[in-house]
């Protein structure tokens, strides 16, 4: 078991790192980062809570089916790639759109971003499902 001290700091880190991981995900197209890196950040901070609090304790209130996460991610990624066919383009043809939001100003929306989100979920789901499966193993 870990100590109160570790647990407290883990609690502090948890939302911080999750936010950071989201930021890495969103920044990926223009800065270092992206789905994979963001996803690994997310997975590792969840792994940290597993380490600090014990898997069973975390599972008692936070127990998503990580299988669904990577299933969803893969589905999202594949569908994003497929969607181009619906627009009479080749598979994986990307699209770049600039939209103007009232408050945030001009925002760049790229189809590849959606794909990256898929990657993000696959990485999180895949890694955590491995951790959970092995960690659960007696």
């Amino acid at each position, binding site marked *: 078991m*870990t*100590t109160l*001290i*570790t647990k407290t*700091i883990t609690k*502090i*880190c948890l939302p*911080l790192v999750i936010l950071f991981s989201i930021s890495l995900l969103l920044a990926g197209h223009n800065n270092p980062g992206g789905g994979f890196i963001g996803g690994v950040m997310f997975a590792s901070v969840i792994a940290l809570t597993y380490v600090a609090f014990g898997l069973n304790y975390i599972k008692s209130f936070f127990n998503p089916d990580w299988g669904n996460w990577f299933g969803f991610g893969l589905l999202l990624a594949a569908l994003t790639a497929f969607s181009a066919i619906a627009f009479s383009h080749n598979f994986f043809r990307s699209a770049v759109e600039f939209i103007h939001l009232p408050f945030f100003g001009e925002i760049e929306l790229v189809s590849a971003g959606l794909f990256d989100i898929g990657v993000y979920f696959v990485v999180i789901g895949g890694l955590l499902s491995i951790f959970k499966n092995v960690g659960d193993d007696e």
Partner: protein
Amino acid sequence: MILNIFSNMILVIGLFFVFLAMLGLARLPDVYNRLHATTKIGTLGAFGVMLSILLKVGFSPMGVKAMTVALFILVTSPVAAHMISRAAHRHGVGLCKESVIDEYGKACNAACPEPEED
């Protein structure tokens, strides 16, 4: 200009402290003492370098991130040190021969195994 000199000074001090921390790592007799070096001096060194960058670039993204890094290290490195030293002690890593007291070892009362070379 003054700010620049000041920040360079902090930078050099920071780097020097990092160096000292590593020197401590090499020279101090046991893992607990080495942790004093890396945790305290290392943290300050890193903090110093990041601070100097913040001073140089202001609250630009780089500065903000440098500060974030510094704060993060400040918060986490003592915990890391605590975890390692605790694990070391429970793992059976004994104190160096100069040590004068071990109240923790007594409290653990569980017979700690002989320190082993890995």
